Each structure stands twice: as C-alpha cells, then as structure tokens.
C-alpha cells in the first residue's frame, strides 16, 4: 500500500497541474459557450456546455469509430509532441515542427507516389524513411546553426517554417506535379499507403507512435545519450566540464527532433491525406508544442496529452452537429489549457494545490529561449 501510495503521490506531483489546468480550461470555456448563446437565435442556454461536452466525449470515445478517429488524430501529435519534448530536454525550443512536418509529409508523398506500384512491404517503409530523413535533415539545419554559430533556434526554425511552405509549393507546382489533376498535387501513393490494421482508418502509424513513445523514454532515461541531452539542457557548462560535447548534442537533438516531426508528417501523409498539395494543414506543428507542454516533456505524458488533443479533434464535429457549438471552441479550450499551464499560480490558488512540482521546467525553457534572459535562479 505504501509503495502504491508513494507512486500515486509521485504521479500527482507531476500530473496535478496539467490535469487541473484541463479542468479549469473546460470551466472557463463553458462560460464562453454560455455567454455566446446570448447572442444566438437559440437564446440563453446555461446548460448548453454540459450537452456540448457530452457530445464531445461521445464523438471522441462513444463508439469504435470515434475511438479510431481519436487515435488517428493523436498519432501525428504523439510524434510531434515527442519532437518538441525532446528539444525541451536539451534546452532547445523547436518551433520548427510545422516545417519539419511538411517536409516529411512531402518526402513521403513523393517517394510513395513513385513506389505506388511496388509491393506495400517496400513502398510504405521506404516512404516512411524518406519522410523521417527529410525531417531530420530539416532539423539538422537549425541545430547546426545553433551549435556552431549561436543562431537562435527559435528564430531560425520560424524562418525555416516559411521556407518549407514556399519551397514545397514551388516543388509541387514545378517539379513533381502529377498529371491529370485540376490542381497542383503529387500523384496517388497507391500501395505505399500505411496498412489499415483495424476498422476503416486505424492505420499502422498508431502502434508505431506508441512504440516510439517508449523508445524515446528509453533513450532519455536509460541511455548515456539521453543523459547527455538532459545534462546539456540542465547545465551546459557542467556538461562541457564533464567531457560532453554540447555542440554535438545540440545538433543531434535538433536532428532527432526533426526526425520525429518528419515521421509525424509521413504517417499523416501515408495514413490519412494520401497526396501533397500546397496548403495542406500544418496545425500539427503548433499543436505539438501544446502537447509537449501539457505532457511536461515526459513521453508518457505526451502520449496522454496527444490522445486528449486527438479526442478534441475527433469529437468536435459531433458536438457541432448535435449542439451547434462551433468546432472552434476546441481551439479556445486548447489555448486555455496552455494559458493555465503557463500561469500555474492561478491553478494553485483555485484548487489550493500543495506538493505539486513548483515549476514546469519546460515552460522555463520556453520563456528563457523567447526572452533570451538569464536562467531561473538556482537554489543555493
């Protein structure tokens, strides 16, 4: 019992603030829903949020299809969340997941289209590898620039996001445009699509994502490479003194981060979208940052956070159909979750939380990298 109790306490320590932030976000979003009803034809409806949330839940988890949709939406977020979280561990803020995602999706689409006639056992893995490699290469650039020139990864990855969009638009228009379509796009991926393992849309990328969660966890917690990554993130000076090479580790971490983001793009391409066209959404890139923060950079936490965000996406249509609460309320809830995580003092006051871990170090990384200020004061 005491061992179980200790475990429960440990979980509460790390998970209490994120969980309560979610609760608080739902409460505040409910107020937004109620207030907005006053301006619609249906009139003031104080109980609408409950109905809306019930539909949201039913849409996300109420049926086999719902659960499948939730998991399909979660899969790229798991990879993206791991990409951002890995960066946080090394003290890096990779805002470039959006660009790395697109590059990965594009590389997978082009490779898949070229191998569309080949057996699935050849096309799908090669297309995945192409996406992973493209993402890694695109992550290597800001990593290399940061390590060797000190160019800040926040600045370079934001610029590279734009570069990716424009470069790929040009490529689809002028290099790899498939014939026979009324708009610029890549060819059909045919056999290279990720195999569906269950139902209508539950593709192989989902188990792959779960395996990757545990692989990243193993890398970070159990290996010397993970120890180097974490040490560089916690105290770069001490890492040099201990004989580590922060320059190498920074480059490696950004490359691995890009690799994970590239896989996110590849599974979304090969499992859901099927072809690359300018303007395909890269919202995964930014949702990944939220997922990593909510999961506190912990791979298991990221897994749950990604499933939650996937559930939002999967359940929202039913909510809109049944209760007329617009899908966009999801964006408000997600934004509120991050707001309450950042301003965790509010959560502490409202719920009188004690014994939770005092600061969320990932947010310190974010604020540090954004503001470029001094690291938070160390205990003496």
């Amino acid at each position, binding site marked *: 019992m005491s061992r179980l109790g200790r475990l429960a306490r440990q979980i509460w320590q790390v998970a209490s603030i994120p969980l309560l932030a979610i609760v608080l976000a739902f409460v505040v979003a409910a107020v937004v829903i109620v207030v907005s009803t006053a301006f619609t034809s249906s009139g003031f409806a104080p109980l609408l949020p409950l109905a809306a949330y019930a539909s949201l839940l039913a849409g996300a988890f109420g049926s086999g299809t719902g659960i499948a949709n939730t998991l399909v939406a979660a899969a790229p977020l798991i990879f993206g969340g791991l990409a951002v979280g890995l960066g946080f561990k090394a003290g890096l803020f990779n805002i470039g997941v959006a660009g790395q995602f697109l590059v990965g999706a594009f590389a997978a689409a082009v490779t898949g289209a070229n191998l569309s006639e080949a057996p699935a056992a050849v096309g799908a893995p090669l297309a995945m590898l192409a996406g992973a490699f493209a993402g890694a290469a695109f992550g290597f650039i800001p990593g290399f620039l940061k390590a060797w020139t000190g160019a800040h990864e926040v600045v370079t990855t934001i610029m590279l996001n734009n570069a990716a969009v424009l470069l790929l638009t040009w490529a689809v228009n002028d290099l790899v445009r498939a014939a026979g379509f009324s708009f610029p796009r890549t060819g059909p991926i045919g056999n290279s699509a990720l195999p569906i393992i269950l139902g209508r849309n539950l593709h192989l990328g989902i188990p792959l994502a779960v395996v990757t969660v545990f692989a990243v966890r193993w890398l970070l917690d159990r290996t*010397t490479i993970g120890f180097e990554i974490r040490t560089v993130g916690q105290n770069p000076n*001490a890492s040099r003194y201990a004989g580590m090479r922060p320059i190498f580790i920074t480059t490696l971490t950004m490359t691995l981060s890009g690799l994970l983001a590239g896989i996110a793009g590849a599974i979304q391409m090969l499992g859901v979208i099927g072809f690359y066209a300018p303007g395909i959404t890269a919202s995964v890139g930014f949702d990944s940052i939220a997922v990593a923060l909510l999961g506190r950079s912990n791979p298991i936490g990221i897994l749950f956070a990604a499933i939650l965000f996937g559930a939002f996406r999967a359940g929202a249509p039913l909510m809109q159909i049944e209760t007329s609460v617009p899908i966009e309320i999801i964006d408000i809830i997600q934004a509120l979750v991050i707001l309450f995580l950042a301003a965790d003092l509010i959560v502490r006051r409202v719920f009188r939380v004690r014994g939770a871990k005092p600061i969320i170090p990932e947010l310190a990384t974010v604020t540090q990298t954004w503001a470029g200020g001094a690291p938070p004061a160390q205990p003496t």
Partner: protein
Amino acid sequence: MGDAPPVLEMRGITKRFPTGTLANDAIDLELRRGEIHALLGENGAGKSTLMNILYGLVTPDAGEILIDRQPVTIRDPADAIARGIGMVHQHFMLVPVLSVAENVVLGNEIVRAGQLLDLREAANQIKLLAGKLGFDVEPSTRIDQLSVGQQQRVEILKAIYRNARILVLDEPTAVLTPQETHEIFEVFRRLRTEGASVIFISHKLDEVLEIADRITVIRRGKVVGSRKPGETNENELAELMVGRAVSLRVDRGRSHPGAVTLEVAGLRAKDDRGHEAVRGLDLVVRAGEIVGIAGVAGNGQDEIVESLMGLRRPIAGTIRLAGADLTRATVDQRRDRGMSFVPADRHRFGLVLTYPVDDNLALTRYAERPFAGGFAGIVRNFRTIAANAVRLMKEFDVRAPGPKALAGTLSGGNQQKVIVAREFGQDVKLLILDQPTRGLDVGSIEFIHKQVIARRDRGAAVLLVSAELDEVLELSDRILVVFRGNIVGTFLAEEAQREKIGLLMATGAARA
C-alpha cells in the same frame, strides 16, 4: 559599549521547516545601539533563517521580536524596512543596467512636479550619504560597471538611504578580496560611530575576531555561546561552531616529489573578451607535491585552469601530462589520462543541481564501464551508479538524505564534498583545485584539506589555485605568485614570507 540600550531583541525564536529540520531552536539574540554583532556558525546552522525571520521573509513558529523594547510583528520586508531594518543579501538585489542613483532610490523615488523623477536631487543626497560613510562612488555610474565590492557598498547605501538603523549583512566578505574586506570593515566602523548597529553573518573566524564587538555562535539552530573578541580565540570559536576540537592548521608533513607530471610551457590564452590573460606561462608540477598558485583574482587564474582542463583553447604553448602532449586534447581525453578538476564555481560547472547526488557522483564517468554498458555500450547501469554513490557518500562523509536527494538541496559544504568525492578518484594523476574551499565552513575545510594531502601522499600531483593566500600558504609545498597572466615569483613552503608574497600579488614586483 556594554551599557548602550538594546535596539533589537529576539527572544525564543523557533522555526521548523516543513521538511522537519529545526532551523532555529529557541534562539535569543540581543543587539545594542552602535554595536557590530557577528553571527558565527557553520553552513546550515540556522543563521540565515534567523535573519530572514528578522527581515520578514520567513515566519517563525514561536518567539518574539522587540525593537527599542517594543514588541513588533514583522510580516514582510516592507514592515522590516519601516522599522529601520536593512538587509544586504549574499546575492545582490541590484538592477545591473540602472545607475547607482536609480538603484538606491528604486521604490523610494524622489519626484517633483507630480511624477517626474528627480535624479539630480537623489544624486546629491547619495553623494552626501556616501561621503559620510567614506565611500567614493559616482551616482551616475551603471551598476554593471562596478566591482563586486563597490556593488556591495551600493547595497549598503540603499539600506541607509531608507533610514536603516539595524543593518544585516549575509556573508558580506565571501565575495570580496582581502583589500575590499578591509574597506567594508571600515564602513562598519563608520556606521558604528553614526549610531547604527550591524549584524553580520560569517563563518570566518579571523574576520569575526577583527571587527565584531560581540560574537554569537550558532550550532544546529541553537545559540551555543556569546563572546567578546578579547575573551576568546580562534580555537575556542571553531570548537563552539563545530562542536568538537578542530585543527585549524593542517599537518602537511613532508612531500616527496617524484617525476614531472604536469609540464606547461609558453602558455598563452585569451579571456572571454579577447584580451590576452595568460602570457607565456611556464609551470611544472611533480608527482607527490602540491603547487599553489597565489594571486589576486582576475590575474589569469581562470584562464590557466580552463586551458589545463580543455575548456579553453590556448593560442600558444604546450601542456604535457606525464610526457604526453595534451595541448589539443578534449576534456574527455584529459580525464582518461588521469586529470581531475575541482572547479571554482560548483553550481556553474561542478554539479547539475537538478540531478540526484548519485548522477552527480558519476557525472564525469557516466559513459564508462561499469556505469554504462549493454546495447552499444550506451545503456546506463543504475545499480552501479547507486552503489558508487553509497560508497563515496560514506567515504567522504556527504550528508544527504540519500543518493537520490537532489544536489540542489544539499548545503554548500556537502555539495563541495560531492565534487571532491567524484574528482579524487583512485587513479588520478593530476588534481587541479580551483578555490576548493570557497564559502565552506571550518569543518568542511579541514576535511577537504586532509583529503588533498592524502592524495598527494599517494603520489598525485596537485595544482591548487586560490584567492585565499592563507589556504595557499597552508597547503602548498611550492608557491607560485601569478600577476597579469605570468608567474612573478616562486617560493618553497619553508621560505615563504606572507608579506613578500602579498606585495608580489598586488604589484607584480618584490619592491613596490
């Protein structure tokens, strides 16, 4: 002096932290008008907690505070300031990009015409105040252009400007050079003649005996004695502090220098700003001897040490360890060859404060067997990491709740012992010690000094860099004086004269 009225009385102050430690156990303290009162104790004895209670930063569980014989409640620092208490923290609370005047008036600004800041009037007042205390400070200078000692005086000005009659200083001399220490003591004396009272926290016995009118010793949260400097001596104070007899002088024994271990020739290195800080340094350390480098901080010591360790690339010269050229070797290669390093800044270099003690004890050998192995040799072996920690914690008397305690929660002395335990490994050939006992209490210093000598006697070459001349004199078999990046004098321990070395340190020449 003895009959001046008390301005401050703290009675039965008790504070237990949520972790269970009894930081203050019914402490009584009395401060008289115009008194310099030293609060002496080891790290973690409860001095800082007591002062934080006085300043309203910590709420006591029991006890009362009287100012001018009136009971008062101090809820927060604003309360404390209003009652004439000023505090100078160990880490200064100054805004580096603002001027002296702006910092002093911050939160207490002089305004004219409603909301306009009147800095000229402030500057005049500050000059007047500074003159009274004997400082020479230009109110328009930016804080980041001042030395540490000058910044400290700005902190004192800030407190006096707010009409502090009771000034509390937390380890004010820890960051100062000997010269600056003398200057700050002069300020204390001026404050005393002005009728102010000073409480200063310290664990340096000689300083306390020099400046204080009264010394109160605290050990494990209790007052264990109160003395006047004339009635006591260093040995008695040390015993009160530590709770047992302490040898303040280390018994160095005879050294038996062997083969040349470290050989540095013509070393040149630049500092972070690109100025040449090490200028053609030659240096030899033999196995089984301790070579001390004495010098005023900032004469190239940091750059010498960093070049030796591989953290800074020298622009010229060679570094050889037991004959092998390591000038361009990585930190890792140097460690593999038997170099070891205790850095001056334990928080910046020596430890990862957010890691547990066991990870810190394996920090420099994390990738070697038996700490890693398995698949591709990259799987960490937590069992050996923990076992290593248990063994070293016992051997080096590291006091922590366990090997999983976070390094940041340990006291300074125990943190330093973690580093020493890690660096003083079995097969170390060259030990580089940069300020190995800075900020530590006598008990920890004694322990570390003994370990250094034990290492030397087992045949290690030791290079000691310290701004504390006493430490260099006590430990070294040979003393080198560094001035502006070069060695300006060499002394054998037997023939070292304090005054001569001091003069060399200050001027670079044997005659001024």
